[in-house]
């Protein structure tokens, strides 16, 4: 594939016009600096995606796009089943429905300060984090099936959380048309004792303070004000999702030839939506989404328990729950006509604007909260979806900053203890079972998220509402 330099279309929009096998252009939303810093592999990968069968409108890359697997991370692509469109396991990724949810605690920073050490210890004790840590929940075959079909709705029915939480989760906490039987026994085995666990790597539970409010009106509707304490949870579908991704990637690579699909990169493995394998993947992937939603719901329950021991008056309300790695069937206008599309978001957040029919009534005026995670010492952001994003990126925005430095480089540069001490001096408490894990996740190993958020705001993909600073971070 020829490497092409994107052409500037506006201050924050860049295009690689169709050439060769490309069916549609590549559109990248970024500032000049972000595009100059972007790995050239992003252009190559987004160009490869533009050549997949049945792709509609464009292959999009968000301002935080970086080199991924097949699809760029920060990639968005929609396919039409009626025009030979495909579904791609690589386009969703291994950590199916990895995402972020943010809770409003009703506590302010002043009340938190004298008790934050105790809260950090309580959370670390209550939330299973890191490799080798199991959850307390064991599901038998029947319960596993019910969880995979029901997602967060299942979790709430089991007593994990409240009914009103469901209004604030995409698809009301349950991905329809999940097919638990399409999930292999090996995937279920990996999940056996992982329900309600945080995982490791860049996954975390963070207690945050609202440090800056950009939009008073939306802030009021969301129920947040400067000084408020929030809790954000970043994790995904654990071993079950990883195994589904692994197995279908191979199946799709092996069957591509049969379906007449030529893959420029094996990682782009995909299958026609209407094929047996495409349908099996969709069923399994949706079950994976439900697993992630149930998992974040159980973690919410655990966070509430830990909070209540330190702050009996705390009332943790769910602001919203977003998923980053998904393929969802959505209706979008294409050349003025509504079309049913399979929208892949790989490291990108759904960002529906005001009035969207899938939003709960109390968020219809503001648009969907878009939650952007940071890394221990760095800021997180709350944005809101826009109507423009529905035209510009199938209602999608960025998801986070991405790494600036590899794990090995970070490990060479920092010691875990040194990172923890430096953050403690800034008033940020870290709790983690692994010092090496902390070093590899050092805030300095990540790009600055503010520029990504500003670019998304400028490009109209979402609007800035609030900036959050970390106070306590539980790392896996």
């Amino acid at each position, binding site marked *: 594939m020829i490497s092409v330099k994107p052409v500037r279309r506006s201050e924050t929009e860049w295009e690689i016009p169709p050439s060769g096998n490309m069916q549609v252009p590549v559109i990248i939303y970024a500032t000049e600096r972000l595009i100059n810093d972007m790995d050239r592999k992003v252009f190559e990968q987004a160009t490869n995606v533009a050549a997949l069968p049945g792709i509609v409108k464009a292959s999009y890359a968000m301002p935080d796009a970086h080199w991924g*697997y097949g699809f760029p991370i920060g990639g968005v692509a929609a396919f039409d089943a009626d025009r030979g469109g495909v579904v791609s396991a690589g386009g969703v990724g291994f950590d199916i429905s990895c995402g972020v949810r943010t809770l409003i605690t009703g506590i302010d920073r002043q009340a938190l300060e004298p008790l934050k050490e105790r809260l950090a210890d309580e959370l670390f004790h209550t939330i299973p984090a890191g490799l080798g840590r199991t959850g307390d929940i064991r599901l038998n075959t029947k319960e596993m099936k019910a969880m995979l079909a029901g997602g967060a709705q299942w979790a709430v029915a089991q007593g994990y959380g409240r009914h009103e939480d469901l209004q604030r989760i995409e698809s009301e906490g349950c991905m329809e048309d999940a097919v638990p039987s399409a999930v292999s026994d*090996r995937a279920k085995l990996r999940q056996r004792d992982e329900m309600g666990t945080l995982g*490791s790597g860049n996954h975390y539970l963070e207690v945050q303070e609202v440090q800056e409010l950009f939009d008073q009106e939306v802030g009021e509707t969301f129920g947040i004000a400067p000084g408020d304490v929030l809790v954000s949870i970043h994790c995904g579908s654990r071993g079950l999702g990883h195994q589904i991704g692994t197995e279908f990637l191979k199946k799709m690579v092996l069957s591509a030839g049969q379906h007449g699909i030529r893959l420029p990169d094996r990682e782009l493995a995909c299958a026609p939506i209407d094929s047996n394998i495409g349908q099996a993947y969709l069923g399994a992937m949706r079950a994976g989404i439900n697993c992630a939603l149930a998992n974040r719901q159980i973690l919410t329950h655990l966070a509430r328990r830990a909070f209540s021991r330190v702050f009996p008056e705390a009332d943790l309300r769910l602001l919203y729950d977003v998923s980053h790695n998904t393929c969802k069937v959505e209706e979008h206008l294409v050349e003025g006509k509504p079309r049913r599309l399979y929208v892949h978001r790989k490291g990108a957040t759904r960002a529906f604007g005001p009035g969207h029919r899938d939003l709960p009534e109390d968020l219809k005026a503001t648009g969907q909260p878009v939650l952007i995670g940071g890394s221990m010492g760095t800021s997180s952001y709350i944005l809101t979806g826009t109507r423009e994003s529905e035209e510009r990126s199938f209602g999608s925005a960025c998801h986070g900053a991405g790494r600036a430095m590899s*794990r090995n480089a970070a490990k060479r540069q920092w010691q875990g203890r040194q990172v923890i001490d430096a953050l403690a001096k800034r008033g940020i408490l870290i709790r983690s079972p692994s010092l090496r894990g902390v070093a590899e996740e050092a805030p300095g190993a990540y790009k600055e998220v503010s520029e990504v958020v500003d670019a998304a705001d400028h490009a109209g993909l979402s609007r800035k509402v609030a900036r959050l600073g970390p106070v306590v971070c539980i790392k896996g």
Partner: protein
Amino acid sequence: MWEHFHHEADIGIRGRGATLESAFEQGAVGLTAVITNPDSVKPGQQIRIRCSAPDLELLFADWLNALIFEMSSRRMLFSRFQVEIQGNELIAVAWGEPVDRARHQPAVEVKGATYTALSVGPVDGGRSWQAQAVVDV
């Protein structure tokens, strides 16, 4: 020998050896090194692994994915490997022990082996073999 190579978001692992089998074995040590120091993992318990794939590259990814599955489902880490490859079939023994969070300080769990930068083949003018892949963490 094994080494890690750069990937923007994740980590690449590369095994090298005099034979195809030893490149696969070294790649597996490199996989463990993503999580912890392989020298800290006692090779006390053994498990058997079998996988097959239509070509050597997919076989290497399958081998890593089989180990990831065993690590995840058994809560174990592995440090010694013996691989036999016949045609498209791999039969292996891996030695390791249950995860000890205090001693191993596991940095990260590996989600899966990807097909990115995946390659297997002879290097050094055919004097040795190399197998590599990027793993998602």
